[in-house]
């Protein structure tokens, strides 16, 4: 097991380097650079801009900057953000908790809703419930997240039941501990629903299809013939088998949620990684962009790894190591 994990992690290293090269090339090909904003301001002296060009090696070809970056990485440091003049890792850490909480909650929300709904839809196949739920699923799948986010903001603004954005209210600093927690929870309701909604629909469909596959399989007939109660068959035997694709797919959830959160965070004014990455991309703050992209990749790979491990744990038929 350990060997498997180590092998997977080691195989990721060259991939990460390849991606970082790609990011640097893309940033170099993209028009303009970080200093464009300064260049267009009338009261910033030319000497200062020249100094900054030298300092950031912006006049140099991309590989010069790449080797500076690799030099930093080897020393265990991801460079400094040009906008904030703060180490990139520090900047990312400011934002990671907010995004992780939101992602974890949306995954939880999606699974809690999708598994029971998918099972029910399969058990009562072709019933009115099945039809309504699949209608809902197709609708949810076809609405882009950012649009759902806009609708949510409008809903919040119209009804006043929820805050229109952000992670905490203006009074937050002056609240008691429990008040703060309640404040966070209140702010998290809408983003969680928005971000999780698409996943609810797709997992529900997957769950339903798999469940149906297994309901028709021989072991179900056998169990019925033996007189095992229907509920036991469905929830113990069929569900156990049908849930595998969901587990192995959950690795991707993390990655897709992260990319989805860039849009949702920007629309809903949520102070997570998405906002930071968006700003860094717009301003071409290179080291932040590279670090953010790499982090996304690491998340994806870790997610897959965890999914594989979970699968092995939930399904004893799967062996991770060949021996």
């Amino acid at each position, binding site marked *: 097991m350990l060997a498997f994990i180590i092998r997977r992690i080691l195989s990721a290293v060259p991939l990460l380097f390849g991606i970082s090269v790609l990011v640097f090339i893309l940033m170099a090909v*993209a*028009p*303009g*650079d970080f200093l*464009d*904003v*300064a*260049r*267009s*301001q*009338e*009261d*910033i*002296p*030319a*000497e*200062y*801009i020249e*100094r*900054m060009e030298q*300092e950031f090696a912006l006049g140099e070809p991309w590989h010069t900057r790449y080797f500076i970056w690799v030099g930093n990485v080897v020393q265990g440091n991801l460079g400094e953000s040009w*906008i*904030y*003049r*703060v180490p990139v890792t*520090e900047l990312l850490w*400011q*934002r990671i908790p*907010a995004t992780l909480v939101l992602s974890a909650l949306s995954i939880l929300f999606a699974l809690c809703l999708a598994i029971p709904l998918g099972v029910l839809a399969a058990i*009562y196949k072709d*019933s*009115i*419930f099945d039809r309504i739920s699949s209608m809902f699923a197709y609708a949810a799948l076809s609405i882009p997240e950012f649009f759902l986010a806009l609708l949510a903001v409008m809903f919040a*603004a119209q009804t006043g039941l929820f805050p*229109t*954005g*952000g*992670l*905490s*209210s*203006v*009074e937050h*600093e*002056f*609240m*008691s501990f*429990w*008040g703060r927690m*309640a*404040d966070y*929870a*209140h702010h998290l309701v809408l983003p969680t629903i928005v971000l999780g909604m698409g996943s609810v629909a797709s997992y529900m469909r997957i769950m339903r299809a798999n469940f149906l596959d297994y309901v028709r399989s021989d072991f179900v007939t056998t169990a019925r013939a033996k007189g095992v109660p229907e509920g036991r068959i469905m929830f113990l035997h069929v569900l156990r088998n049908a849930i595998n694709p969901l587990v192995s797919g959950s690795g991707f959830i993390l990655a897709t949620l992260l990319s989805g959160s860039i849009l949702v965070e*920007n*629309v809903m*004014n*949520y*102070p*997570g990684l998405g*906002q930071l990455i968006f700003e860094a991309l717009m301003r*071409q703050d290179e080291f932040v962009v590279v670090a953010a992209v790499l982090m996304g990749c690491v998340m994806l790979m870790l997610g897959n790894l965890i999914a594989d491990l979970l699968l092995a744990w939930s399904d004893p038929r799967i062996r991770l190591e060949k021996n």
Partner: protein
Amino acid sequence: MYAVLPVLEKFLLENIYKLAALPKLALITCLLLILFACKGEIPPLERKDHPLPQDAEVSESEPGLYGGILVTAESQQPRTFNPLVAEDAYSSQAIGRFLNGLTSYHPLKEEVVPELARSWEISSDHKSITMHLRRGVLWSDGEPFTAADVIFTFKALFDERYPNRYQGQYIIAGKPIGFEKLDRHTVRFTTARPYSPFLYVIGFIGILPRHKLVDAYEQGTLLQEWSVRTAMHESGELVGTGPFSVHSFRPGQRIIFEPNPHYWRVDSRGQRLPYVDYLITRFVQDRNTATVLFASGQIDAADIAPGDVVGVSRNAPLHGFTVHHRGPATGIRFLWFNQKPGVNEDGRPYVEPHKLEWFTNKYFRQAILHGFNREGLIQSVYFGRAELLHSIISPANQRWHNPEVPKYPYDPRRAIELLEEQGFEFREGGQLYDKHGNPVIFDVYASEGDDITPQIMSTFRENMRDLGIRVRVRYLDFGTLVARISRHFEYEAAMMGFTGGADPSGGRAIYLSSGRLHLWNPEQEEPQTEWEANVDELVYASEEIFDLEERVDYVHRMQEIFSEQLPLLYLLTPHAYAGLKDKWRNVRIPAMGSVIWNIDELYLDREH
């Protein structure tokens, strides 16, 4: 027909035991909602009674009462709290809340007023300025403020290790300004030649506390100090003399300022300013969000775009605010032709020679502006909430703006006349040709930035078609546009804008022929035309004149030349509007700058 009901009934019957959980769920939801509802109010601030400084400044405004929280919103957050690092307006604004300069610019009086320097003397040769610092002023941590802090700030500013945007501004006639400490509260500055904007520019840099930063300065890590990290985790380290101190900073969410207990301004009753308990700035995604927040009563002040005035005003009675008309905005927006002669690295001319001939002809430029229906744009795009721009300095800048410059109203007949005088002629199909027989066609580059640009450009294209000129509009990403106009010079015409500042010395980079933003032909070694040489002379001369009236006169003459030669074809200047809640007193809204520029004097009306 489906047997809907039986199926539903069966479903409900089989699952009825699950419904038992519903009351519990409802209970939890109710509890949560109650929790959400009882979110705490911000408790009033308890103020410590510190003695007032000897040279405290007494505010001229009416005395008020302590208390209240003022909430604003900004579309971007501060990137740093270190004035040597800051290069954007949002960081500078946050820094200005807790740091003071030696002088500052009063937006209503439109003149330089004392800040940390209580008075100054200018020597008879105008080359040395002696500043008397306010005595008895304390930093927010209680340490005394002295001349040593001023000297430290300027030493850091000119230090080779710490490149910053102010260095260039304090290098006058090629030499850094000199500074020396005369005694504990007196500092003398010397300049290589008389420089009249000195008092204005000297106020740009916030004076830094030596006792807090000297160690970092010695170690060479001054630029790493006072970052967003400091504001998040050790906001007490951000020591200043300004009206506020940073209470807390949450990236992407908000910054909360609290009054500086040692601030040096008081009201006529001897109460230390500011009156507000907390100043909270929320960070929102864009200006539209800020407008929505203001219109729904969630923030106290906001800039309102001309197009939103009607919509926002509709909510005024509901939330008790007023949308104030501030007159024309400070920025200028213009279109210009590339007049750069010569060839690029590949030996290709920057501008095709026959086009360069048009572009360098002032009558051609005047004709284009005459042919552009800007008046129509004001009606169609801004609904009348804008006005024509005629000068390189916006009319918002009342002190310096020259209203008597040559103007080019929409007059297609005059445009055609001017073109024909210059040898242009119309041929079949109404197309305009120059005297060498080249059809008049050019490309205009614009940034796709806002939704108004495309409307301006399509009007321009239509108007030019009426003159027989074919205009192709290309939209570029802002970065690409800047690179094209400032580095590669490969364009024919472009549209852009500048924000504009108070003193015309801020526009040197545009006015001077050697300037980086002398857009039509930047960074000339020697002025290439007579009028550009004249402008250079006027700019330099105006900066040596200490008599304000005389200096204004020079700047007016410079504007006349610009409007006569028209290197920049001025477009229009939208009107500025600012919303503010009515519960605030001592509100005085200037034509330029922040609406809450006198935040330390604002107080809450108890009636509201």
